[in-house]
């Protein structure tokens, strides 16, 4: 692509975002601008439309195109047991506390291709808590949700995942939970029995469950500060008192206004806990 005048590009991106919101209802205006711009640029390149405006044109005139755009704009990158210390902390420090609830609801927000959902199910299965659990796995990208539900991943990943699994304190072998064929692994569908996959857009949608644990890793980084704050408030309102929040390694509550509603369990692992009492009386 030839160098584009940055000011012109800003206008194009703005129009693109507006088209996406007004035509399809997906609001990306609160996404972190630099990253969004990169992805839009990439999308234009991938679809060979040359300019972002051309992309906007297709977006407006081809109703089905929006799904490809969403696919391109979301960044569904993850691994099973990604950041093993986090999963180890979940296993050793969070699950024993969760066990004190009669039923445990877990919200995996932005589940993307589902690796973490499956990891979580394995973790819960091994902790003997899974029968009392329900995992709500949500994402705004329907295609990613479908992949998450399938639980089929390239076999070449399995090695690294096995390592992660063991580092996360896995008690068996990861291979106990999948069958491999044709260079793919398929996770045991029995692990899915207490997972409900649903479409939920963190930008627009509201609280839909009361959860004891909310996992939302590496999603907030794509959001601007006001949107991050909205989403954190959403998590706060979804969490039962004493419930846990687990964010990604580059995300933190440090400067968020919602921080007052949480106490830190482990700052390095981005593990927080919902305070029992609201810091201020919201009653009016």
């Amino acid at each position, binding site marked *: 692509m030839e160098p584009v005048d940055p000011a012109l590009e800003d206008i194009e991106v703005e129009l693109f975002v507006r088209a996406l919101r007004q035509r399809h209802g997906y609001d990306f205006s609160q996404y972190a601008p630099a990253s969004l711009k990169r992805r839009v640029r990439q999308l234009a390149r991938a679809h060979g439309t040359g300019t972002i405006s051309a992309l906007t044109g297709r977006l407006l005139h081809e109703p089905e195109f929006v799904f490809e755009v969403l696919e391109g704009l979301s960044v569904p990158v993850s691994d099973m047991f990604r950041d093993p210390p986090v999963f180890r902390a979940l296993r050793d420090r969070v699950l024993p*506390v969760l066990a*004190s609830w*009669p039923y445990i609801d877990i919200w995996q927000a932005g589940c993307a291709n589902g690796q973490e959902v499956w990891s979580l199910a394995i973790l819960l299965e091994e902790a003997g808590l899974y029968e009392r659990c329900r995992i709500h796995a949500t994402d705004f990208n329907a295609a990613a949700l479908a992949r998450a539900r399938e639980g089929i991943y390239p076999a070449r990943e399995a090695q690294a995942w096995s390592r992660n699994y063991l580092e996360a304190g896995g008690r068996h072998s990861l291979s106990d939970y999948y069958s491999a064929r044709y260079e793919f692994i398929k996770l045991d569908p029995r692990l899915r029995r207490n997972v409900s996959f649903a479409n939920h857009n963190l930008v627009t*949608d*509201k609280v*839909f469950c009361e959860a004891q644990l909310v996992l939302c890793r590496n999603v907030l980084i794509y959001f601007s500060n006001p949107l991050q704050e909205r989403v954190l408030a959403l998590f706060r309102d979804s969490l039962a008192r004493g419930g846990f929040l687990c964010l990604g390694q580059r995300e933190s509550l440090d400067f968020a206004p919602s921080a007052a509603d949480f106490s830190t369990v482990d700052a390095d692992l981005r593990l927080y806990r919902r305070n029992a009492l609201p810091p201020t*009386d919201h009653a009016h």
Partner: protein
Amino acid sequence: MAARQPSNDRARGDASRYSWIAHLPVQRKMMLVIGPLLLVFLLANLATLYSLDQQTEHRHWSEHTYDVLLDIGSVRQSLLAAQVGARGYMLLQSTSELADFEQGGRDLADGLRRLRALTADNPVQQTRLDAIQTLATRWQREIVAYVITPAARGDIDPAARQRIQEDFLAHRSVTVPQITAVLDQMADTERNLLVERNGRLDQTLALMRLVNALAAVLSLLYGAYVVNLTWRLIARPLNQMTELMSRLAAHDHSVVISRLGRRDEVGQIARALQVFKQLAIASREQDWLKNELSTLAPRLQEATTHRAFGQLLTGEVARLVKAGVTLYYGYDAHSERLDLLGSYGLRQSWSPESYVPGEGLVGQSVLERKPIVLDTVPEHYVRIHSGSGEALPCQITILPVLYREQVVGVLELAGFEPLSPLCRQLLDELLPIIALTQENLTRAIATQQLLEQTREQAEDLSVAAITLRQQQQVLRDSNEALHAKTQELEEQSQRLTVSEEELRVQAEELQASNEELREKGDILKEQKQALEALQRETAQKALELERASRYKSEFLANMSHELRTPLNSLLILSRSLADNDTGNLDEEQIESARIIHDAGSNLLRLINDILDLSKIEAGKMELVIEELPLAVLQRSLQRTFGHVARDKGLSFEVRVDEGLPAALHTDAARLEQVAVNLVGNALKFTARGEVRVRIGRPAPESAIPPALLGQPLVAIEVCDTGIGIAPEKFARIFQAFEQVDAGTSRQYGGTGLGLAICKRIAALLGGDIVLRSAPGEGSTFTVLLPEVPPVGTTAADGHAPAPAPRAHSSALLPESIQDDRGHLDQGDVTILVIEDDPAFARILADMIHRKGYRVLAAADGETALALAREHRPTGILLDVMLPGIDGWTVMERLKADETVRHIPVHFISATDEASRGRELGAVGFLTKPVSREAIAQAFERLLHVAEDRTRRLLVVDDDADARTAVRTMLRHEQVQIDEAGSAEEALRMTARAQYDCIVLDLGLPGMSGTELLDRLAATPAGVPPVVIHSGRDLSREENLKLRQYTDAIVVKGARAPERLLEEVSLFLHSIQHASRRPAEKPSLGDELKGRSVLLVDDDMRNLFALSKVLRGWGLTVTMAQDGRKALKALEENPATELVLMDVMMPGMDGYEATRAIRAQARFAELPIIALTAKAMRGDRERCLEAGASDYLSKPVDLDKLASLLRVWLPH
């Protein structure tokens, strides 16, 4: 290569180790093996043949012997026959007897002849035959001579016979027994011979058996030996070779190949394998070499400096050739010097940093351009040094690195072992790479430096260029300016020349008219002075007018406040009377009280309207401009008036025309206020017929005010078939306090301010309201709004005019009401009421007394502060508008005083500035007029905050240890802990005392924990805060049931105690528990009482919050946690009248459940309202597509819920 030597030795060793047989080719081995076997077989056969021969011969001889014996027998018989014949002849002299005798003699001779033939080989028998022959002949002759012949001479008488016989006996020399004796001897001999032969045959047979047996054993043994030999010499080696081959194929080069020295096929295979192995090793080594080179080359290329290059190179080379010390010198052609670029394993100070060519071996190698290898290293040479020691290397190698025949560097290696050929090869191939890479690096660095230089120059240049450009620009600009000026000057000079003449003429004329002008100027000056005086006067008046207007607004604000204050008491008291709490009023009195209340409410509305109007007129109405989707307006009107119209039996329709913008840019709330007012009026003044609202372009017949012409307008037309208005009254109805006539006012009620306010709001929004009507024909009110709002519609100052502080003196202070300050006891709960309206103060005091608390009352701030400091009340109720210092100041002073700052303060005021109140630290804010319920809540809040008494906790558990555990856990809390071992005991205890929290185990003997909760719920006090501490898992149903009473459920476990502690502390310390916060729900009256609703949601918080609200409205609520359970619940309660269906649920979600319900014909008309947390555009459509009748966003707005229930629950 290195491995060949020992393997040859081994081959030789093998050769000597193996027997000669091992060396034979396989074919010969086979022959060797099979030959002896064949031989043994042949010998055994020969032996058998011989034995058979022996047997045949023996049989022949046996037959021969039998023949001899038979013949001997026949000879004996012939003899005896001859003897009998002779004897007979002697007796009878018959010829036959003689013939017998003669026959016997012939037979004898025949027999003897045969015997002779038979025994021809036996001389003994021949001799015996000769003897028999002789004896027989003699016997025959004697018979003939002495018997036959005498007997032949005539008759023989016995005597003669006797004589003959005697004669014979006397003469005979041979007797038959003699002959037979010889015959017997013969027969004996023959028999002996037979026995002897039989014996020999038996021997032969025995021998044969032995031979055969031996041959068999020998064959077997030999066979076994052969098998063994074959296994050892062929099969096993082949197996081993195969295995070795597999290992070799799998790149196991450590295999040791044996049997190399064998000269047979196995040896050949082994030798081939050996070759194969060497090839594999060589190929592996080459692979290794190529691999290392190919990985090293790019890494070397990554180096960006010579040092990094040298370090990387020496490190890698040392690793590759296992050298202890590696040095690399780069040759700088300019300075003709070798510089140490990198070293590995070198102790600092060992080696000089640089050499010149010819200096030392390193320098020498530059001159010679040949590798130098030192095999014996002298004592003081470089040592390979490590933490655990140091030693002299065994070999030093110095390699010049050549690039295009030029030395570019020298690599020096020192190691404990001489370089292996492979390493040499590696180095050979590496050196050109090093040379090339270094050369590239040198060039790259040079390029980089050049680039850097160029960039600096370019920067300098660009700076210079910019400066130059700027200077040029300045020059050009000034040039242009000069040019322009010159031109202008030229033109001017031209024009000057032209007009000079004219000027001159004019000047003359001017001079003439100057005088005239001066005169006129004087007149003008006078006029101007008059005008200025007039302007000053006008400004003064305007100022006065503005002041008057402000005074009016302030007056109105103050008035409304003054009016609201007594109204406040009036409304509360009249409501209280109408409710007939005490039950001592009759119907009529209640009705009167209700009328008072209604009238008061009307008055309040009027005051609000006046306030609105005064705000607008004072220009203080604040507009909030935002997007108002027309569909929202439509829906809101439909919802607000749909049921009113239905109640009145009117047809009601709200329509939005095509071709309009989707949304209006306006103040949504104000516009809605206008629309609601107009539609409300229309419905009010229409007894029958219809009311239609059309949102569209203005109708052609409507008179558009000239100010609005020429811009796109949106019209909201409210058209009714009501009483109508006469045209002459059109103007008046928009005036404040005007209705069509006084009679109308009485008939229809209303303040008469509504339309005036509407008209002014419309004007504020940049539009207008026009009216078409005729008496009896209905009216059409049209709100006209510009599509684009005019700029400046936003009023600047939104605050209501602050009521001016009223002048006061202590003499004018309102009188405080009677309070309890004289008789307060320690520990009394006391509330300080600061209120200047004695009527309201009395109401408050009365309510406080009724709650059993003490009252302190003050009518002004100063008194109040003094009272607060003196008595330290439990809580304070504070009015804002007070004589003297106002409520805000009182609050500030209270909070500034250490001694009273902790006392909670609750505002009750006619002003509406809750946020300011909270900022100052109030626990709550109520705006007058207030209801008694609200006051009661304010008390509660005050007291709740104030409570600092010791908390009481009840632990219900049948296990004494568990109770102790909880007690231990809470030992740091300021809490009194009671214990109950059973539910019955707990019931008794809760009846006696109020508990702040109960920790309840579910598994109790007798009455269960759940039952206990049910029983507690039935008591008037209700269920106190409960923390369930369950030792067992709960079913979902149990969980659901428990959630009615508490959401603090802790399952016993390792980490449960800490959570139990958290939950308990929460109840003990919380000022107000979130879930216990009274829901501020709109009241619904009895409209929906008894209707049955099914509530479906998996979010239990929502489930219970909503069910509480719905039950509060008098509805019967069934709950279900997911789609499937919802279907089941509908099955069980087919009388359900409405379903509230959450969309996102696990298992069967809301869409699916809705579809499933709709699939049943009997539920086709059942209203289903979808509750959705999703706000995307398509989500709502999906709800409706699935069959939902309507939808409601989460979190649920209770007002909207109420409206929806009204709309959808069939009447």
